[in-house]
């Protein structure tokens, strides 16, 4: 599934226009990005959490030429799936499917 498919499916699922679901999808992902770009982390219950993870510098090699390459320390976004997501994905389509019930979506 790509972004435009997500937008279309979301519009159908929530009975909103594509315009609304497109904006919602953009706000959703941009907010997660902005949070991490300013060194905050994001936790979404049942889905997972996003955080910046630091990876130490190392000396790698160009696999083609064998030359040594110095790779400096870097910060990358890291996603850890929540319990529910991990369980469902591991069980696959044989397991119970996640449900969407608008009336149950209050926090």
């Amino acid at each position, binding site marked *: 599934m790509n972004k435009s498919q*997500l937008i279309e499916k979301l519009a159908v699922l929530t009975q909103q226009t594509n315009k609304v679901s497109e*904006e919602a999808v953009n706000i959703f992902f941009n907010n*997660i990005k902005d949070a991490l770009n300013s060194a905050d982390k994001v936790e*979404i219950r049942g889905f997972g959490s996003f955080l910046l993870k630091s990876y130490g510098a190392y000396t790698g090699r160009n696999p083609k030429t064998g030359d040594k390459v110095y790779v400096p320390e870097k910060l990358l*976004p*890291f996603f850890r*799936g929540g319990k529910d997501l991990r369980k*469902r994905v591991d069980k696959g389509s044989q397991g119970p499917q996640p449900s*969407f019930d608008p009336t149950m979506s209050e926090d």
Partner: protein
Amino acid sequence: MVKADIVRAIELKLGLSHTDASDQVEGILHLVKSTLTEGEPVLISGFGQWKVREKKSRIGRNPKTKEEYEISPRRVVTFYPSNVWRQEIVKSLNKN
């Protein structure tokens, strides 16, 4: 940041009711989750990609008792951030 913060942002920017904004967020999470549950990847350009990977069974060891046991084959979700986002993080770090 938590889910309620994203719901609030959608409420304010789109002028939706709290319930409608919450439905948008729950809907996104539901669609991403069910796609991954079917083993299909989710690709959000500019953000990143979730993929489902099959892991083979392997021998694990309880570090306390040193007992060996088999870790069953499993499917796991891995997230790969997009190059665009990686560059944004490099830039925002240089600013600070």
